[in-house]
């Protein structure tokens, strides 16, 4: 027994027939083919599956696809616009906020939502805003720095950056 859903994913409308029990994360990955949203914990602790549903960060393992009917979803694939990275994506790159990269899409979506709600978070507010996301590689140090840097960039400021460089030609060699 399937049910019809019609939703907008990353600005594009689509209609599908799905089982009522199909999780939104499975719908995104397996029906819509958007595999950037990841599954890690199965019990909604880790936040790897975070997407924006009508602009609000949700764990897509805890939403049925049919609950997204008529609504709008933004996934990690839809965050960069016209070939330009979102400031949060850029900051995760420049501050080395990822290693294996598996938790990263969820972190970036959660951080983007946090900064949309609170453009100038304190460290404590960053902690609380991202406590629904788990990372096992970074010890969170550079993730926090990335969120600070993104907040600063989005507010037109210059964050205290780590001095990591995109271009090797400009790379300074440390003693």
């Amino acid at each position, binding site marked *: 027994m399937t049910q019809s859903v019609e939703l907008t994913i990353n600005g594009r409308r689509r209609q599908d027939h799905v089982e009522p029990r199909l999780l939104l994360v499975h719908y995104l990955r397996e029906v819509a083919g958007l595999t950037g949203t990841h599954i890690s914990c*199965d019990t909604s602790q880790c936040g*790897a599956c975070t997407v924006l549903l009508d602009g609000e960060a949700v764990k897509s393992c805890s939403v049925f696809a049919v609950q997204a009917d008529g609504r709008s979803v933004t996934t990690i694939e839809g965050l960069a616009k016209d070939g330009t990275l979102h400031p949060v994506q850029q900051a995760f790159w420049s501050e080395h906020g990822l290693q294996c990269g*598996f938790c990263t899409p969820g972190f970036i979506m959660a951080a983007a939502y946090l900064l949309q709600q609170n453009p100038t978070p304190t460290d404590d507010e960053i902690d609380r805003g991202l406590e629904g996301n788990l990372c096992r590689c970074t010890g*969170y140090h550079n993730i926090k720095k990335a969120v600070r840097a993104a907040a600063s960039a989005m507010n037109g400021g210059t964050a205290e950056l780590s001095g990591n460089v995109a271009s090797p030609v400009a790379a300074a*060699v440390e003693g």
Partner: protein
Amino acid sequence: MAVTSMIGARIQRREDPKLITGHGHFIDDVNLVNMAHMSIVRSPHAHARITSIDTAAALASNGVVAVLTAADFKPVIHGGLPVTNSFVADKKQIPEQFPIATDEVVYLGEPVAVVVADDRYTADDAAQLVAVDYEPLPAVMDLELAMTPSSPLVKSDRPDNIGWDAAFPAGDIDAVFAEAEVIVKQRIGQQRLFPTPMETRGCVADYVPFDNRVTLWTSTQVPHFVRLFVGGALGVPESQMRVVSHDVGGGFGSKIRPYGEEYLTTAASKLCGRPVKWIEDRTESLQATTHGRGQIFDIEVAANRDGTLLGLRFTQLLDIGAYHGVFSAFQVVACLLGGGAYEWKAINARSIGIFTNRTATDPYRGAGRPEATHLVERAVDLVAREIGMDPAEIRRKNFVKTFPHVNNFGLTYDSGDYEKTLDRAMEIIDYAAFRKRQEELRAQGRYTGIGFSTYVEICGLGPSAATAPAAGIALVESSMVRVHPTGSVTVSVGTHAHGQSHETTFAQIAADALGVPYDSVEIHHGDTGDTPFGYGTYGSRSLAVGGMAIMASCHKVVEKARKLAAHAFEASEDDIVVDQGRYFVRGNPGEAKVLAELAFASYGAGLPEGMEQGLEAVSYFDPPNFVWPFGCHICAVEVDPETGAVTIDRYVAVDDCGNVINPMVVEGQLHGGIAQGISQALFEEVSYDDATGQMLNGTMLDYLIPTMAEMPMFELDRTVTPSPTNELGVKGIGEAGTIASSVAVINAITDALSPFGIRHVEMPARPDRLWSMIKEARA
């Protein structure tokens, strides 16, 4: 034009653009036409006899392709899972493990049957319909009881529950203890941990009928190792089997073995004639992916009242689990490193590996070295407390000070300057000011503490001379460097990256060694189809061994390019100068050829007499020694005596891993490593019910992985003492943070609680544990 130097450059990672935009290629992202999905029926018992398996209801489900048990797999999978016993033990028992249980299950989560269906939901539903009857048997859970002759057996066909019993004597320990002025004793636990990579395991197998060819995509740290063993068991030669491991979402040691599920998925593909995908769910992962640690140490330290350390005697009881992990015996290295960064007259260690009805333990980040560091750094603090000496001073007094240093067991520490890291870390944290403030706070009823960890570790596995006793194994690493006709370079390696940033750092090395632009170098790893045989990534070996294999191939390429340049300039080879990728005749730098020009020439006509076309090389590097990173970590905590809660106020780490290729990456490895050690010290513990063998915290809801809110910001610095072991002067840094950090936290907590007379705290130092200890001390 080549840049001047790539070594030491803080370059952002080339891995990241795809990962931050959702275009990574992890195992669950692999989808093939006509692919079926596999779900595994696992034992709900720690120990039981299987009396019957009824698959009829599952088979009758719409969409189910097959339900398979050991009887179906036996004709297809030959032999058992590999075990590498790294150390020769006095007594050794290595039971054979088939990838799926036949008539007796011996750990919770052991595979019993698999269901293959058209989609994952159907497979999982049908797995619920497989009816297995079990006759429960006693679960062997307690290490010390398991060693006794009257203990029930972990598996009924074994003589006893002992996996190994190995003695490591060095020096006259009895004489040293007889002359000592002070002897302290302590039992120190190393609780079981889930390694918990954020991506669980999984694989996709595509067996091509009639051709006997297999492609196996799998989330592993060791693709070549998987091909060797899975291919071997299924009768598929390496030449017809390709193992692909693209992006892997973390490993931390838990993905360094060929797993039973890789055999089962491949065999299921063969039996069903379709590609088959298996993705582990988190509860399966916690039950069936190897665990870390699970050890108990009983230590005795002999010292003099002036702080001179004399002797160390200890026993390691190691919970193997029901079967050996592939490298479980490696953790015996804790015995050989138990002396840490200090001089000892004698050390006597013994390791006993004990089977229990639990999941196998295997290396988890550090694998034996966090345990060694924890025991020796606790030992030193216990002596310091006993004789009233400052913990920094007792370390300084006993440090190994000259290098190379041969330790009590004949291992050679290649280089070091331990005092320098201690001094620097004390300077950063302002030790004297901390002690002063600590006194003031204690007067106010607040309990702060400071903990040292001055570690040394062994990594860069490993010299064949050391690894050969384990079945003749040589843990070398490989590379193939190919310069294409227009000058771009492909470097293929046998190591594997799953967060370590090799695509960036290895390109830095090759660009530097070849004198070519960084952007022209591409790193290939994780696909046995286009990489030379290698042992993969673990034991902080990829740079010191794999990086050197890249250097070796680059040198061969440069030597051939030199010949090509000599030919082009009609000069003698001896007169060709190679300077940052430019080849010219001595004295005439204005007329030079870059590598790309020589590469183009190498594929054309008119080569020197006898020279073959092409510009490429393959190398295998067997290191002459291990490498020995070291450093000093200092943790400052406050313990709330009313709740037992620990707050980390500061965490300072000064590490020395020799020369650094990319400081950004080194810092990132340290952050993550330190966090995992802090997490062991404060939060994590796999809990089983000792009576039934049931797992009590088998979800991430119940198992405490820290969030950002629990982690401090780290204060890092480093010293640079190049390794003399390899040309790059590098050591390793992937595990150092974890090796150092758990005991820095625990030493800080014991320091904080010293006014209560508390001299030792077990891990995890959860609030309830500390609160109870404080309450008892106050009573």
